[in-house]
């Protein structure tokens, strides 16, 4: 067996094995690239102000702040990512889709009308049709997420050219992304803020190019999402 393996590493001697060696090299190269993805450092913090807990009939909604005239809205895919992560796994919780919630409770969570603080909740809950709808959908916790991912630094240069002989790039690019999000958790039953969870992640991506550009992408936003969702789930269910 060992002998056979050694033979396979000598392309040209056995044409049938040449393809296999090529495939193995490509797989090894792809694995190497994947393992060399940009590094991400993330930190999560929580502040608890009251005890929490959820029953099977309770649900939660994750909302992005859409206040005006801010130009720093939380990305829709980040909200979707946190919602999806909360709704899966061993301790999955019932998560209501953000748009479905805004439509079900329209117009009370639009940018113009959404409650800015928990002291605005009693007035909203005093409307019978609203409190009835919230009971129907079993909403217990409302989580507001503030923050975004921004590019904080970038450098390097890359030149690409196309000639009759072919195309290619040469150079090196690097950029740094910074994700900073804070979730404020409102308990609709008590009408109070029960705590805050923040997630920060920073990572640098690289793209060297010698003929072919090779991106080593740091998944900063994804890391912040996973950390935040994990901590939120723990905060709500183990409170």
């Amino acid at each position: 067996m060992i002998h056979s393996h050694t033979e396979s590493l000598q392309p040209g001697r056995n044409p049938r094995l040449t393809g296999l060696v090529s495939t193995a090299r490509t797989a090894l190269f792809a694995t190497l690239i994947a393992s060399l993805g940009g590094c991400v450092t993330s930190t999560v913090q929580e502040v608890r102000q009251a005890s929490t807990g959820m029953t099977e009939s309770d649900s939660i909604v994750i909302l992005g702040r859409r206040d005006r005239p801010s130009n720093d809205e939380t990305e829709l895919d980040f909200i979707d990512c946190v919602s999806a992560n909360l709704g899966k796994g061993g301790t999955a919780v019932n998560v209501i889709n953000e748009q479905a919630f805004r439509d079900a409770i329209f117009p009370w969570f639009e940018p113009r009308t959404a409650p800015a603080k928990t002291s605005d909740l009693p007035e909203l809950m005093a409307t019978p049709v609203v409190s009835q709808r919230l009971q129907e959908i079993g909403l217990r916790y409302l989580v507001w997420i503030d923050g975004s991912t921004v590019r904080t630094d970038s450098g390097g240069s890359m030149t690409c050219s196309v000639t009759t002989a072919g195309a290619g790039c040469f150079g090196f690019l690097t950029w740094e992304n910074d994700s900073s999000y804070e979730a404020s958790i409102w308990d609709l039953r008590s009408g109070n803020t029960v705590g805050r969870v923040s997630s920060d992640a920073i990572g640098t991506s690289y793209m060297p190019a010698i003929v072919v550009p090779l991106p080593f992408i740091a998944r900063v936003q994804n890391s912040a999402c996973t950390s935040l969702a994990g901590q939120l789930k723990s905060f709500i269910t183990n409170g």
Partner: protein
Amino acid sequence: MKKIHRTKLLRHTVTLLLAVLMAGCMTTSVEVPATQFPVPLMQKLPVRMGLYLPEELRNYEFRQDLGDAGVFEIEIGPAQEAMFTNLLTGMFVKVVPASDPVTFDTLEADAVLVPRIAEMQFSTPQQTRTDYYEVWIRYDMALYDQDGTVLVQWPLTAYGKANTQNYLLASTSPTLTQAALNACRDAMAFFTVQFQTLPGVQQWLQATTPIQPPTNPATVQGGTS
């Protein structure tokens, strides 16, 4: 062989140059979908509200030439019927569509709402140096009694924005559509909170005999989902 290759290269170069030049003359045309307006969740007012949508509102199309950035067209008119029908269905016990302002007196309605778009504006991310498309709509709202007399007139300004980063390759059309849709939703939200605060509306509501809500909500006319 070499000649054929050069001809091919020349053709590709010309095509590329034309594409770059044509980019400046590009027209971006979007239409606000009429199917995405929720019905407001609120205590219905016990009155019969007529709704008349003028032809110019139903066909309203905003067009602006931004020179090198291209021409932008936003078709907002076709969505207005669904938007106002859903809005009034959520706010009033009965909604009565009116097809002609002359026939207001024959309608079984306590008043007729007539909205018009007075002005529309938008901005691109290039103009504001942000990631957002923004849309502003100024409506002129008028409430008529059955005799065709204006009871109340007021302006309603709505705003919507959408982040290009939320759409694949930061593409223009879906972002601009979402910004216009958000402006329409904002108009609905603003109308619901503003309507009862208008002094003229308050007087009219006090003077109007309230009607009983129908036993089956499905009998309310005009709801569009």
